[in-house]
């Protein structure tokens, strides 16, 4: 196991290294003076000169990359042109916001998806089965930003039930310990703030969680169907176990692996959906940061965010893999 983790860690390191080379090259190859690219269009000649010296911009590309790498390894991804703040500091500040949203969306997606998948598999070809599979199909076919807009139109504007965006209303304040507002407000025993933060989470989580929910529901259904055709389920049934026990104890446990794999990949890929969801709900996370950076052509911020996100995704995948080995005794990593 330790050997496996070490191997994966090296692999992640290599991937991130390669991501950094590619993004570095792409940005360097973008037209224009790299000093201006990094310092912004209206940097003074002195700043540009300092930039060239500090990042070795007159040297060959390969040397430039290693200078950049040296900075990056010290946690210096440069300064955002837009906000004049350290890119890494901003990314680290925003990460918990995206994490809270993603976790919540994933909880929503898993609970509903697994439930719908099991029921659909058990009551195959029933009305419920058809309806939930049609919903799942719509879920993967619709633009999530459109779903988000529809949710706002219905639940915030028409029915006035939930807020249109943001993380917390101004009248509440939470001391940011973990920056996960639900957790922080609970630690403070500030229940009104907890509730308010929860309300802010509902619509964005539905919007972000719909695609994973649809996938999880479909995979749960098909892997449950696979498992339920297996001999040992037949054996269990013939032993006279009641149907519920057969499904929960035997079938679900064995169907869990593909479901978990799907959840893990979907969780890692939530970052893509987060870009659009956060933009619409003005959620101050990594997604809004990267959209801002791209539209302002804030290259240091773009570069930093891509590497950061790649790292996060790789780590999530690693954690999911390690998690499997505990659940499924058949898997032994070497």
């Amino acid at each position: 196991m330790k050997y496996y983790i070490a191997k994966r860690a090296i692999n992640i390191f290599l991937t991130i290294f390669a991501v950094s080379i590619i993004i570095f090259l792409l940005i360097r190859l973008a037209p224009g003076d790299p000093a201006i690219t990094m310092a912004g269009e209206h940097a003074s000649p002195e700043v540009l000169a300092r930039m060239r010296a500090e990042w070795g911009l007159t040297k060959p590309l390969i040397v430039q990359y290693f200078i950049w790498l040296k900075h990056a390894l010290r946690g210096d991804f440069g300064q955002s042109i837009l906000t004049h703040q350290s890119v890494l500091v901003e990314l680290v500040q925003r990460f918990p916001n995206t994490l809270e949203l993603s976790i919540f969306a994933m909880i929503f997606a898993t609970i509903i998806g697994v439930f719908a998948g099991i029921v659909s598999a058990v009551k195959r070809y029933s009305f419920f089965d058809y309806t939930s599979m049609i919903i799942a199909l719509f879920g993967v076919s619709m633009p999530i930003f459109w779903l988000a807009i529809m949710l706002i139109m219905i639940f915030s504007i028409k029915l006035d039930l939930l807020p249109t965006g943001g993380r917390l209303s101004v009248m509440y304040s939470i001391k940011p310990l973990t920056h996960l507002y639900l957790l922080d407000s609970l630690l403070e025993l500030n229940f009104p703030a907890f509730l308010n933060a929860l309300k802010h989470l509902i619509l964005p989580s539905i919007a972000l969680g719909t695609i994973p929910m649809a996938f999880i529901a479909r995979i749960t259904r098909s892997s449950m169907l696979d498992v339920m055709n297996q001999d040992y389920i037949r054996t269990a049934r013939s032993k006279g176990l009641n149907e519920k026990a057969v499904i929960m104890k035997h079938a679900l446990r064995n169907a869990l692996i593909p479901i978990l794999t799907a959840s893990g990949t979907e969780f890692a890929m939530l970052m893509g959906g987060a870009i659009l969801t956060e933009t619409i709900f003005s959620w101050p996370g990594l997604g809004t940061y990267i959209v801002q950076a791209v539209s302002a052509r804030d290259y240091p911020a773009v570069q930093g965010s891509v590497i950061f996100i790649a790292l996060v995704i790789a780590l999530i995948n690693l954690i999911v893999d390690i998690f499997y080995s505990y659940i499924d005794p058949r898997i032994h990593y070497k």
Partner: protein
Amino acid sequence: MKDSVLRETFRYTRRNRSAMFGLFLICFFIFIAVAAPLIAPHNPLVQNLKNNLQPGFWADKKTNFLGTDNFGRDILSRIIYGARISLTVGFIAVIIGVLLGMTAGVVAGFLGGWVDNVIMRIVDIMFSLPSILLAIVMVAILGRGLDKAMIAIGITYAPQIARIVRSQTIVVGNNEFIEAARAIGTPSLRIMVVHVLPNVLSILIVYGTLSIGSAILDAAALGFLGLGAQPPTPEWGAMLADGIHSITGGYWWVETFPGIAILLTVLGFNLLGDGLRDATDPRLRKKV
């Protein structure tokens, strides 16, 4: 031999009602796109500010069936013309992806060694990031615009195809008839292409169909973020971005209908793609 597999695939697909419904949706939107000038009631670009944000059939307004947008343009006509853009983007992006992916896959599988390593490492990296993020970053470097968005999306679809084609190339490469062909002096790369293509064709069709759907979604997302189609192009995602200010004022139709158009088109490709996949997978085929 491959012909018969394809024919069989289509025969099974034809029995699948949801796949046929998907095909119907696709044909419907292709028809709309082709016939746009004939069936669109208005010019999609002509504005009439005095008539802006007017409701449609639900308010008994017959002239603008789905209402008008912020500029008084007819939403129905814009959706009809938008079908041209979305379908074109979807097809071309996937064609770009297939061409890139096939080239990379054949080259990697055929040459092997460090070339294979490098190509597959790049594929891994692209897999490690969400495709929309990759597309956004590429647009940031290439610049805004529909053409660039199309290229960016196409590139993000290449890795999946590269993987499929590479593994097939390796399988074919180990075949004896390749050795035989080489022996009689046929250029081996040509043989590879000729023999690999039929083998991967059915997978490519399935994957391509599903990819067109997600390419349309990605293009709409880029249009929505202002990175894809530029005004006054009636692209569905850009239409949603234009109308976002109108929702608090209660002009729901501006945001609702372009989204439904996207949903139905993508649904069509997903239904057909699922059907084709089930048909090509013999294990699933028995269950239908």
